[in-house]
Protein backbone atom coordinates (compact mmCIF):
# COMPACT_ATOMS: atom_id res chain seq x y z
CA UNK A 1 0.00 0.00 0.00
CA UNK A 2 1.34 3.41 -0.89
CA UNK A 3 0.60 6.12 1.61
CA UNK A 4 -0.30 9.56 0.25
CA UNK A 5 2.59 11.99 0.19
CA UNK A 6 1.88 15.13 2.20
CA UNK A 7 3.82 17.79 4.04
CA UNK A 8 3.99 16.84 7.68
CA UNK A 9 2.04 19.25 9.92
CA UNK A 10 5.07 21.23 11.11
CA UNK A 11 6.45 21.72 7.62
CA UNK A 12 2.98 22.74 6.49
CA UNK A 13 2.67 25.32 9.24
CA UNK A 14 6.12 26.63 8.38
CA UNK A 15 5.11 27.11 4.76
CA UNK A 16 1.86 28.85 5.64
CA UNK A 17 3.59 31.14 8.14
CA UNK A 18 6.23 31.98 5.54
CA UNK A 19 3.59 32.81 2.95
CA UNK A 20 1.67 34.93 5.43
CA UNK A 21 4.81 36.84 6.35
CA UNK A 22 5.75 37.36 2.70
CA UNK A 23 2.25 38.68 1.97
CA UNK A 24 2.67 41.30 4.68
CA UNK A 25 6.27 42.24 3.85
CA UNK A 26 6.40 43.71 0.34
CA UNK A 27 9.34 42.49 -1.72
CA UNK A 28 9.53 39.15 0.06
CA UNK A 29 9.49 35.83 -1.71
CA UNK A 30 8.99 32.24 -0.53
CA UNK A 31 11.03 29.33 -1.85
CA UNK A 32 9.92 25.85 -0.86
CA UNK A 33 12.98 23.59 -0.69
CA UNK A 34 11.78 20.02 -0.51
CA UNK A 35 13.57 16.68 -0.56
CA UNK A 36 11.88 13.43 -1.48
CA UNK A 37 11.42 10.97 -4.30
CA UNK A 38 10.38 13.00 -7.35
CA UNK A 39 7.06 11.20 -7.75
CA UNK A 40 6.22 11.84 -4.09
CA UNK A 41 7.14 15.49 -4.40
CA UNK A 42 4.75 15.78 -7.30
CA UNK A 43 1.99 14.38 -5.10
CA UNK A 44 2.87 16.84 -2.35
CA UNK A 45 2.66 19.70 -4.82
CA UNK A 46 -0.84 18.61 -5.81
CA UNK A 47 -1.94 19.28 -2.23
CA UNK A 48 0.00 22.44 -1.36
CA UNK A 49 0.49 24.29 -4.65
CA UNK A 50 -3.03 25.74 -4.51
CA UNK A 51 -2.62 26.97 -0.96
CA UNK A 52 0.07 29.68 -1.04
CA UNK A 53 2.46 31.20 -3.59
CA UNK A 54 6.01 29.82 -3.65
CA UNK A 55 8.82 28.77 -5.93
CA UNK A 56 9.82 25.13 -5.61
CA UNK A 57 13.39 23.92 -5.30
CA UNK A 58 13.18 20.15 -5.58
CA UNK A 59 15.71 17.54 -4.51
CA UNK A 60 15.18 13.98 -5.68
CA UNK A 61 16.24 11.63 -2.88
CA UNK A 62 15.14 9.46 -0.02
CA UNK A 63 12.68 10.86 2.49
CA UNK A 64 13.00 7.85 4.76
CA UNK A 65 12.84 8.47 8.45
CA UNK A 66 16.08 6.56 8.88
CA UNK A 67 18.11 8.87 6.68
CA UNK A 68 20.79 10.54 8.74
CA UNK A 69 19.71 14.08 9.62
CA UNK A 70 23.24 15.32 8.90
CA UNK A 71 23.07 14.13 5.31
CA UNK A 72 19.54 15.43 4.80
CA UNK A 73 20.53 18.80 6.21
CA UNK A 74 23.62 18.93 4.03
CA UNK A 75 21.59 18.47 0.87
CA UNK A 76 19.00 21.04 1.95
CA UNK A 77 21.62 23.62 2.94
CA UNK A 78 23.43 23.23 -0.38
CA UNK A 79 20.18 23.71 -2.26
CA UNK A 80 19.37 26.86 -0.29
CA UNK A 81 22.86 28.27 -0.80
CA UNK A 82 22.56 27.67 -4.54
CA UNK A 83 19.35 29.67 -5.00
CA UNK A 84 20.17 32.35 -7.55
CA UNK A 85 19.78 35.92 -6.33
CA UNK A 86 19.14 34.97 -2.72
CA UNK A 87 20.30 37.71 -0.34
CA UNK A 88 21.49 35.62 2.62
CA UNK A 89 21.64 38.66 4.88
CA UNK A 90 17.84 38.85 4.59
CA UNK A 91 17.22 35.14 4.75
CA UNK A 92 14.66 33.61 7.09
CA UNK A 93 14.78 29.82 6.98
CA UNK A 94 11.49 28.26 8.06
CA UNK A 95 10.93 24.57 8.55
CA UNK A 96 9.13 22.07 10.67
CA UNK A 97 10.35 21.80 14.22
CA UNK A 98 10.70 18.04 14.00
CA UNK A 99 9.99 17.53 10.33
CA UNK A 100 12.77 16.42 8.07
CA UNK A 101 14.02 12.94 8.82
CA UNK A 102 10.72 12.36 10.55
CA UNK A 103 10.89 13.77 14.00
CA UNK A 104 14.66 13.88 14.30
CA UNK A 105 14.57 17.37 15.76
CA UNK A 106 18.07 17.85 14.38
CA UNK A 107 17.86 18.64 10.69
CA UNK A 108 16.96 22.30 10.95
CA UNK A 109 19.74 23.09 13.40
CA UNK A 110 22.32 21.54 11.06
CA UNK A 111 20.91 23.43 8.07
CA UNK A 112 21.31 26.64 10.08
CA UNK A 113 24.88 25.80 11.05
CA UNK A 114 25.81 25.03 7.47
CA UNK A 115 24.36 28.36 6.37
CA UNK A 116 26.15 30.19 9.18
CA UNK A 117 22.94 31.23 10.95
CA UNK A 118 23.49 31.77 14.67
CA UNK A 119 19.99 32.93 15.53
CA UNK A 120 17.98 29.76 15.70
CA UNK A 121 14.63 29.08 17.34
CA UNK A 122 12.80 25.78 17.76
CA UNK A 123 9.21 24.96 18.62
CA UNK A 124 8.11 28.35 17.32
CA UNK A 125 4.46 29.24 17.71
CA UNK A 126 4.57 32.93 16.81
CA UNK A 127 6.72 35.44 14.91
CA UNK A 128 6.25 39.19 14.80
CA UNK A 129 8.34 41.45 12.61
CA UNK A 130 8.75 44.84 14.24
CA UNK A 131 8.94 48.10 12.33
CA UNK A 132 12.73 48.21 12.74
CA UNK A 133 13.11 44.73 11.23
CA UNK A 134 13.72 43.01 14.54
CA UNK A 135 11.92 39.76 15.23
CA UNK A 136 9.88 38.80 18.26
CA UNK A 137 9.59 35.06 18.59
CA UNK A 138 7.65 32.70 20.85
CA UNK A 139 9.26 29.28 21.36
CA UNK A 140 7.78 26.37 23.25
CA UNK A 141 9.63 25.43 26.41
CA UNK A 142 8.87 23.03 29.24
CA UNK A 143 5.64 23.04 31.18
CA UNK A 144 3.32 24.59 28.59
CA UNK A 145 5.23 27.88 28.55
CA UNK A 146 6.70 30.04 25.81
CA UNK A 147 10.09 31.74 25.81
CA UNK A 148 9.86 35.20 24.27
CA UNK A 149 12.96 36.32 22.37
CA UNK A 150 13.86 39.40 20.42
CA UNK A 151 16.29 38.95 17.55
CA UNK A 152 18.00 41.87 15.82
CA UNK A 153 16.67 40.65 12.46
CA UNK A 154 17.46 38.35 9.57
CA UNK A 155 19.20 36.04 8.98
CA UNK A 156 17.47 33.63 11.32
CA UNK A 157 16.19 30.08 11.34
CA UNK A 158 12.82 29.13 12.79
CA UNK A 159 11.70 25.55 13.41
CA UNK A 160 7.94 25.89 13.60
CA UNK A 161 5.63 24.01 15.93
CA UNK A 162 1.96 24.63 15.32
CA UNK A 163 1.81 28.36 14.78
CA UNK A 164 -1.49 30.14 14.92
CA UNK A 165 -2.66 30.27 11.33
CA UNK A 166 -5.44 28.11 9.95
CA UNK A 167 -4.66 26.03 6.90
CA UNK A 168 -5.19 28.22 3.83
CA UNK A 169 -8.02 27.27 1.51
CA UNK A 170 -7.27 26.03 -1.97
CA UNK A 171 -7.00 28.82 -4.52
CA UNK A 172 -6.88 27.58 -8.13
CA UNK A 173 -5.31 30.85 -9.29
CA UNK A 174 -2.43 30.42 -6.87
CA UNK A 175 -2.13 26.83 -8.08
CA UNK A 176 -1.91 27.94 -11.73
CA UNK A 177 0.86 30.42 -10.97
CA UNK A 178 2.78 27.93 -8.84
CA UNK A 179 2.55 25.15 -11.38
CA UNK A 180 4.43 27.25 -13.93
CA UNK A 181 7.53 26.82 -11.82
CA UNK A 182 6.71 23.56 -10.03
CA UNK A 183 6.80 21.28 -13.06
CA UNK A 184 10.13 22.61 -14.39
CA UNK A 185 11.56 22.41 -10.87
CA UNK A 186 10.50 18.78 -10.56
CA UNK A 187 11.95 17.98 -13.99
CA UNK A 188 15.32 19.38 -13.05
CA UNK A 189 15.28 18.09 -9.45
CA UNK A 190 18.84 17.37 -8.40
CA UNK A 191 19.33 13.72 -7.47
CA UNK A 192 20.89 13.21 -4.03
CA UNK A 193 22.12 9.97 -2.52
CA UNK A 194 22.80 9.31 1.11
CA UNK A 195 25.47 6.86 2.13
CA UNK A 196 24.49 6.47 5.77
CA UNK A 197 28.12 5.85 6.63
CA UNK A 198 29.01 4.99 10.18
CA UNK A 199 25.46 4.28 11.27
CA UNK A 200 24.34 0.69 11.90
CA UNK A 201 20.92 -0.43 13.02
CA UNK A 202 20.93 -3.56 15.17
CA UNK A 203 17.15 -3.58 15.28
CA UNK A 204 14.14 -1.46 14.47
CA UNK A 205 10.81 -2.48 15.93
CA UNK A 206 7.31 -1.34 16.66
CA UNK A 207 6.70 -1.21 20.39
CA UNK A 208 4.23 -3.61 21.88
CA UNK A 209 0.95 -1.77 21.91
CA UNK A 210 -1.64 -4.36 22.67
CA UNK A 211 -2.94 -4.44 26.21
CA UNK A 212 -5.48 -6.78 27.69
CA UNK A 213 -8.31 -4.31 28.11
CA UNK A 214 -10.80 -5.03 30.85
CA UNK A 215 -14.14 -3.70 29.59
CA UNK A 216 -16.40 -2.55 32.44
CA UNK A 217 -19.94 -2.21 31.17
CA UNK A 218 -22.31 -2.72 34.04
CA UNK A 219 -21.22 -0.34 36.75
CA UNK A 220 -22.99 2.86 37.72
CA UNK A 221 -21.22 6.20 37.34
CA UNK A 222 -20.99 6.37 41.13
CA UNK A 223 -19.19 3.03 41.36
CA UNK A 224 -16.89 3.86 38.48
CA UNK A 225 -16.06 7.20 40.08
CA UNK A 226 -15.16 5.47 43.35
CA UNK A 227 -12.93 3.02 41.52
CA UNK A 228 -11.20 5.79 39.59
CA UNK A 229 -10.57 7.88 42.69
CA UNK A 230 -9.08 4.86 44.49
CA UNK A 231 -6.91 4.15 41.45
CA UNK A 232 -5.70 7.75 41.26
CA UNK A 233 -4.83 7.71 44.93
CA UNK A 234 -2.84 4.45 44.76
Amino acid sequence: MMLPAVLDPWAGHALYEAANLAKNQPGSKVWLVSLGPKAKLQQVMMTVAQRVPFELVALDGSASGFTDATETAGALAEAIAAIAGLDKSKLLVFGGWESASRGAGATMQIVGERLGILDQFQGVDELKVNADGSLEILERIEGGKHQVSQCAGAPALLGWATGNLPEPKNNPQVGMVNMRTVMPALQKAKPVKFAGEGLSFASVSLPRQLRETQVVKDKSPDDIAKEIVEWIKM
Partner: protein
Amino acid sequence: MEVILILAHAEADGSLAKSAREALHAAATLHKSLAGSKFVIGLVGENVQAAANSIAACTATRYLGVTGADFAQPRYGTDAAAAEAICKAAQATVVVAPATSRWARVLAGVAQRLGGRADTHVTGVSAADGKISVNRWYYRQRMESSQTRTQRPWILGIDPGSQTPCVCGAGNASVEKISVNLTDAATRTTIIGVREPKADAQTIRPDAKLLFVTGAGWTKKQADGQTHLPEAEKIILDFLKKSRASLGSSKSLVDQSGEGQAILPFLSHLNQVGQTGATPRHPKGLSTCCHGEEPHTVGWRFIGERRAISLDPNCGWARGKADVLYVADAFKVMMKVNELLATKSI
Protein backbone atom coordinates in the same frame (compact mmCIF):
# COMPACT_ATOMS: atom_id res chain seq x y z
CA MET B 1 39.22 5.14 24.70
CA GLU B 2 35.91 6.95 25.05
CA VAL B 3 35.64 10.24 26.90
CA ILE B 4 32.06 10.56 28.11
CA LEU B 5 30.89 14.10 28.72
CA ILE B 6 27.65 14.91 30.47
CA LEU B 7 26.52 18.29 29.25
CA ALA B 8 24.03 20.10 31.45
CA HIS B 9 22.86 23.62 32.11
CA ALA B 10 22.14 25.14 35.48
CA GLU B 11 18.62 26.36 36.13
CA ALA B 12 17.91 30.01 36.91
CA ASP B 13 18.28 29.29 40.64
CA GLY B 14 21.61 27.55 40.08
CA SER B 15 20.26 24.03 40.62
CA LEU B 16 20.27 21.05 38.27
CA ALA B 17 16.95 19.94 36.82
CA LYS B 18 15.68 16.39 37.19
CA SER B 19 16.23 15.83 33.48
CA ALA B 20 19.93 16.66 33.95
CA ARG B 21 20.20 14.10 36.74
CA GLU B 22 18.54 11.55 34.47
CA ALA B 23 21.12 12.19 31.76
CA LEU B 24 23.83 12.01 34.39
CA HIS B 25 22.56 8.60 35.45
CA ALA B 26 22.69 7.38 31.82
CA ALA B 27 26.21 8.74 31.36
CA ALA B 28 27.48 7.31 34.64
CA THR B 29 26.05 3.89 33.81
CA LEU B 30 27.73 4.00 30.42
CA HIS B 31 31.02 5.01 32.02
CA LYS B 32 30.80 2.09 34.41
CA SER B 33 30.27 -0.40 31.60
CA LEU B 34 33.08 0.95 29.40
CA ALA B 35 36.43 -0.08 30.81
CA GLY B 36 39.05 2.63 30.55
CA SER B 37 36.58 5.38 29.69
CA LYS B 38 36.83 8.83 31.22
CA PHE B 39 33.88 10.68 32.67
CA VAL B 40 33.68 14.47 32.55
CA ILE B 41 30.94 16.85 33.60
CA GLY B 42 30.34 20.07 31.64
CA LEU B 43 28.04 22.76 32.98
CA VAL B 44 26.74 25.98 31.44
CA GLY B 45 25.02 28.83 33.23
CA GLU B 46 25.46 32.19 34.88
CA ASN B 47 26.99 30.38 37.85
CA VAL B 48 27.47 26.63 37.94
CA GLN B 49 29.22 26.04 41.26
CA ALA B 50 26.05 25.13 43.15
CA ALA B 51 25.02 22.72 40.39
CA ALA B 52 28.48 21.12 40.40
CA ASN B 53 28.49 20.84 44.17
CA SER B 54 25.10 19.14 44.12
CA ILE B 55 26.59 16.21 42.18
CA ALA B 56 30.14 16.34 43.52
CA ALA B 57 30.03 12.76 44.74
CA CYS B 58 29.53 11.29 41.29
CA THR B 59 32.30 9.34 39.56
CA ALA B 60 33.39 12.11 37.18
CA THR B 61 37.04 13.09 37.25
CA ARG B 62 36.72 16.60 35.79
CA TYR B 63 34.20 19.39 36.07
CA LEU B 64 34.23 22.00 33.32
CA GLY B 65 32.14 25.14 33.38
CA VAL B 66 31.22 27.99 31.06
CA THR B 67 29.81 30.77 33.19
CA GLY B 68 28.81 34.41 33.07
CA ALA B 69 25.81 36.60 32.41
CA ASP B 70 25.91 35.81 28.67
CA PHE B 71 25.24 32.17 29.47
CA ALA B 72 22.31 32.71 31.77
CA GLN B 73 19.87 32.93 28.90
CA PRO B 74 18.84 29.95 26.76
CA ARG B 75 19.97 31.30 23.38
CA TYR B 76 21.35 29.43 20.39
CA GLY B 77 24.40 31.62 19.72
CA THR B 78 25.81 31.52 23.24
CA ASP B 79 24.67 28.02 24.19
CA ALA B 80 26.16 26.48 21.04
CA ALA B 81 29.45 28.31 21.65
CA ALA B 82 29.53 27.15 25.28
CA ALA B 83 28.75 23.54 24.41
CA GLU B 84 31.32 23.54 21.62
CA ALA B 85 34.02 24.92 23.95
CA ILE B 86 33.29 22.34 26.66
CA CYS B 87 33.25 19.44 24.19
CA LYS B 88 36.61 20.55 22.82
CA ALA B 89 38.15 21.09 26.26
CA ALA B 90 36.99 17.66 27.39
CA GLN B 91 38.03 16.05 24.10
CA ALA B 92 34.70 14.32 24.38
CA THR B 93 33.88 11.39 22.14
CA VAL B 94 30.43 10.75 23.58
CA VAL B 95 28.28 13.61 24.82
CA VAL B 96 25.19 12.85 26.87
CA ALA B 97 22.74 15.72 27.42
CA PRO B 98 19.17 16.05 28.61
CA ALA B 99 16.86 16.94 25.73
CA THR B 100 15.51 20.03 27.44
CA SER B 101 14.18 22.78 25.18
CA ARG B 102 17.47 24.62 25.77
CA TRP B 103 19.72 21.78 24.68
CA ALA B 104 17.40 20.47 21.98
CA ARG B 105 17.83 23.85 20.31
CA VAL B 106 21.59 23.51 19.96
CA LEU B 107 22.83 19.90 20.23
CA ALA B 108 22.57 19.01 16.54
CA GLY B 109 24.23 22.29 15.56
CA VAL B 110 27.08 21.64 17.95
CA ALA B 111 27.56 18.16 16.46
CA GLN B 112 27.80 19.78 13.04
CA ARG B 113 30.46 22.20 14.29
CA LEU B 114 32.51 19.39 15.78
CA GLY B 115 32.21 17.13 12.76
CA GLY B 116 30.25 14.60 14.78
CA ARG B 117 26.69 13.33 14.82
CA ALA B 118 23.70 13.88 17.05
CA ASP B 119 20.95 11.45 17.93
CA THR B 120 17.76 12.67 19.54
CA HIS B 121 14.89 10.96 21.37
CA VAL B 122 17.37 8.62 23.04
CA THR B 123 15.90 6.50 25.83
CA GLY B 124 18.70 4.03 26.46
CA VAL B 125 22.50 3.98 26.30
CA SER B 126 24.55 0.82 26.84
CA ALA B 127 27.86 -0.77 26.01
CA ALA B 128 28.90 -4.33 25.32
CA ASP B 129 32.37 -5.50 24.29
CA GLY B 130 33.52 -1.92 24.23
CA LYS B 131 30.87 -0.93 21.70
CA ILE B 132 28.28 1.71 22.54
CA SER B 133 24.72 1.36 21.35
CA VAL B 134 21.69 3.52 21.93
CA ASN B 135 17.97 3.02 21.85
CA ARG B 136 16.08 5.85 20.25
CA TRP B 137 12.67 6.58 18.77
CA TYR B 138 11.85 7.41 15.19
CA TYR B 139 8.76 8.59 13.37
CA ARG B 140 7.42 10.54 16.31
CA GLN B 141 7.76 7.71 18.81
CA ARG B 142 6.27 5.07 16.52
CA MET B 143 9.40 2.99 16.02
CA GLU B 144 12.25 2.18 18.31
CA SER B 145 15.73 1.31 17.11
CA SER B 146 18.91 0.01 18.62
CA GLN B 147 21.87 1.49 16.79
CA THR B 148 25.56 2.22 16.82
CA ARG B 149 27.72 4.88 15.20
CA THR B 150 31.36 5.14 14.34
CA GLN B 151 31.42 8.94 14.14
CA ARG B 152 32.72 10.93 17.08
CA PRO B 153 31.83 13.00 18.91
CA TRP B 154 28.47 11.33 19.21
CA ILE B 155 25.98 13.62 20.91
CA LEU B 156 22.97 11.99 22.56
CA GLY B 157 19.86 13.91 23.58
CA ILE B 158 18.19 11.92 26.36
CA ASP B 159 14.39 12.23 26.44
CA PRO B 160 13.39 13.66 29.85
CA GLY B 161 11.46 11.18 31.95
CA SER B 162 13.08 8.15 30.33
CA GLN B 163 15.78 7.53 32.97
CA THR B 164 16.07 7.19 36.70
CA PRO B 165 17.61 10.38 38.11
CA CYS B 166 21.03 9.89 39.65
CA VAL B 167 21.21 10.13 43.41
CA CYS B 168 24.88 10.96 43.73
CA GLY B 169 25.48 13.13 46.71
CA ALA B 170 26.66 16.68 47.20
CA GLY B 171 30.10 17.97 48.09
CA ASN B 172 32.62 20.47 46.88
CA ALA B 173 33.45 20.22 43.20
CA SER B 174 36.42 21.94 41.63
CA VAL B 175 35.16 23.47 38.41
CA GLU B 176 37.66 24.35 35.66
CA LYS B 177 36.46 27.50 33.96
CA ILE B 178 36.42 27.32 30.19
CA SER B 179 36.57 30.65 28.40
CA VAL B 180 34.51 31.34 25.32
CA ASN B 181 35.18 34.20 22.95
CA LEU B 182 31.75 35.35 21.92
CA THR B 183 31.31 37.36 18.75
CA ASP B 184 28.63 40.02 18.48
CA ALA B 185 26.77 37.66 16.16
CA ALA B 186 26.22 35.25 19.05
CA THR B 187 24.26 37.78 21.08
CA ARG B 188 21.93 39.29 18.49
CA THR B 189 19.06 37.63 20.32
CA THR B 190 17.82 38.73 23.72
CA ILE B 191 15.43 36.72 25.85
CA ILE B 192 12.66 39.08 26.90
CA GLY B 193 10.93 36.66 29.22
CA VAL B 194 8.67 33.68 29.58
CA ARG B 195 4.99 33.74 28.78
CA GLU B 196 2.87 31.35 30.76
CA PRO B 197 -0.73 31.01 31.79
CA LYS B 198 -1.67 32.28 35.23
CA ALA B 199 -0.87 29.74 37.93
CA ASP B 200 -4.48 28.59 38.22
CA ALA B 201 -4.81 28.34 34.43
CA GLN B 202 -1.67 26.28 33.86
CA THR B 203 -2.90 22.88 32.77
CA ILE B 204 0.36 21.31 31.58
CA ARG B 205 2.21 19.74 34.48
CA PRO B 206 5.06 17.51 33.31
CA ASP B 207 5.69 16.12 36.79
CA ALA B 208 2.06 15.18 37.50
CA LYS B 209 1.32 11.56 38.37
CA LEU B 210 -1.73 11.54 36.12
CA LEU B 211 -2.30 12.63 32.52
CA PHE B 212 -5.96 13.47 31.93
CA VAL B 213 -6.79 13.30 28.22
CA THR B 214 -9.88 14.99 26.84
CA GLY B 215 -11.36 14.07 23.50
CA ALA B 216 -13.73 15.80 21.12
CA GLY B 217 -16.68 14.03 22.73
CA TRP B 218 -16.79 16.69 25.44
CA THR B 219 -17.97 19.22 22.85
CA LYS B 220 -20.43 17.01 21.00
CA LYS B 221 -24.18 16.74 21.47
CA GLN B 222 -25.04 14.64 24.47
CA ALA B 223 -27.98 12.33 25.15
CA ASP B 224 -30.40 15.28 25.34
CA GLY B 225 -29.42 16.43 21.85
CA GLN B 226 -27.59 19.50 23.17
CA THR B 227 -23.95 20.38 23.66
CA HIS B 228 -22.86 21.17 27.21
CA LEU B 229 -19.65 23.13 26.89
CA PRO B 230 -19.92 25.20 30.07
CA GLU B 231 -20.51 22.03 32.07
CA ALA B 232 -17.65 20.25 30.32
CA GLU B 233 -15.34 23.15 31.06
CA LYS B 234 -16.33 23.23 34.71
CA ILE B 235 -15.97 19.46 35.16
CA ILE B 236 -12.56 19.29 33.50
CA LEU B 237 -11.08 22.32 35.26
CA ASP B 238 -12.53 21.21 38.57
CA PHE B 239 -10.93 17.80 38.14
CA LEU B 240 -7.55 19.31 37.22
CA LYS B 241 -7.67 21.57 40.25
CA LYS B 242 -8.51 18.75 42.63
CA SER B 243 -6.31 16.03 41.17
CA ARG B 244 -3.35 18.21 40.06
CA ALA B 245 -3.31 16.14 36.87
CA SER B 246 -1.75 17.36 33.64
CA LEU B 247 -4.16 18.02 30.79
CA GLY B 248 -3.73 16.44 27.39
CA SER B 249 -6.04 16.65 24.44
CA SER B 250 -6.70 14.87 21.20
CA LYS B 251 -5.78 16.72 18.01
CA SER B 252 -9.37 16.82 16.86
CA LEU B 253 -10.36 18.77 19.96
CA VAL B 254 -7.63 21.41 19.81
CA ASP B 255 -8.11 21.78 16.05
CA GLN B 256 -11.72 22.76 16.50
CA SER B 257 -10.79 26.34 17.37
CA GLY B 258 -9.27 26.78 13.92
CA GLU B 259 -12.34 25.27 12.30
CA GLY B 260 -14.82 27.63 13.89
CA GLN B 261 -16.43 24.92 16.03
CA ALA B 262 -17.37 25.06 19.68
CA ILE B 263 -14.24 24.88 21.78
CA LEU B 264 -12.98 24.49 25.29
CA PRO B 265 -11.13 27.79 25.69
CA PHE B 266 -8.40 26.57 28.03
CA LEU B 267 -7.11 24.05 25.49
CA SER B 268 -4.35 24.92 23.05
CA HIS B 269 -2.04 23.03 20.74
CA LEU B 270 0.36 22.85 23.67
CA ASN B 271 -2.06 20.38 25.28
CA GLN B 272 -2.15 18.14 22.24
CA VAL B 273 -0.76 14.66 22.75
CA GLY B 274 -0.07 12.09 20.10
CA GLN B 275 1.52 11.83 16.70
CA THR B 276 1.59 15.55 16.03
CA GLY B 277 1.64 16.64 19.63
CA ALA B 278 3.58 15.78 22.72
CA THR B 279 4.40 12.34 24.07
CA PRO B 280 4.45 13.07 27.79
CA ARG B 281 5.58 10.58 30.41
CA HIS B 282 3.32 10.05 33.40
CA PRO B 283 2.76 7.01 35.65
CA LYS B 284 -1.00 7.00 34.95
CA GLY B 285 -3.35 8.22 32.26
CA LEU B 286 -7.12 8.69 32.16
CA SER B 287 -8.73 9.25 28.79
CA THR B 288 -12.24 10.65 28.41
CA CYS B 289 -14.49 11.13 25.40
CA CYS B 290 -11.75 10.23 22.94
CA HIS B 291 -12.27 8.22 19.80
CA GLY B 292 -9.48 5.93 18.81
CA GLU B 293 -7.09 6.50 16.00
CA GLU B 294 -3.53 5.37 15.70
CA PRO B 295 -2.00 8.85 16.05
CA HIS B 296 -3.65 9.22 19.44
CA THR B 297 -2.11 5.97 20.54
CA VAL B 298 1.30 7.57 20.33
CA GLY B 299 0.14 9.91 23.08
CA TRP B 300 -0.28 6.88 25.32
CA ARG B 301 3.09 5.40 24.53
CA PHE B 302 4.90 6.45 27.66
CA ILE B 303 1.97 6.33 30.06
CA GLY B 304 2.19 3.54 32.62
CA GLU B 305 -1.28 2.54 33.75
CA ARG B 306 -4.08 3.57 31.40
CA ARG B 307 -7.81 3.84 31.93
CA ALA B 308 -10.50 5.25 29.69
CA ILE B 309 -14.12 6.34 29.90
CA SER B 310 -16.16 6.10 26.73
CA LEU B 311 -19.71 5.38 25.71
CA ASP B 312 -18.38 3.23 22.89
CA PRO B 313 -17.31 -0.22 24.10
CA ASN B 314 -15.35 -0.64 20.89
CA CYS B 315 -13.54 2.67 21.25
CA GLY B 316 -10.29 2.34 19.36
CA TRP B 317 -8.53 4.67 21.78
CA ALA B 318 -9.16 2.27 24.60
CA ARG B 319 -9.52 -1.26 23.24
CA GLY B 320 -6.17 -2.96 23.40
CA LYS B 321 -4.56 0.30 24.55
CA ALA B 322 -6.08 0.95 27.96
CA ASP B 323 -5.92 -1.45 30.88
CA VAL B 324 -9.50 -0.66 31.86
CA LEU B 325 -12.29 0.77 29.71
CA TYR B 326 -15.35 2.07 31.54
CA VAL B 327 -18.34 2.13 29.23
CA ALA B 328 -20.12 5.13 30.70
CA ASP B 329 -20.99 8.78 30.31
CA ALA B 330 -17.83 10.74 31.15
CA PHE B 331 -19.90 13.78 32.22
CA LYS B 332 -21.63 11.76 34.93
CA VAL B 333 -18.56 9.83 36.03
CA MET B 334 -16.25 12.84 36.23
CA MET B 335 -18.84 14.91 38.09
CA LYS B 336 -18.99 12.18 40.70
CA VAL B 337 -15.19 11.87 40.72
CA ASN B 338 -15.00 15.59 41.50
CA GLU B 339 -17.47 15.20 44.35
CA LEU B 340 -15.38 12.41 45.83
CA LEU B 341 -12.15 14.30 45.38
CA ALA B 342 -13.64 17.25 47.22
CA THR B 343 -13.84 15.08 50.29
CA LYS B 344 -10.59 13.15 49.90
CA SER B 345 -7.12 14.52 49.49
CA ILE B 346 -4.95 13.00 46.77
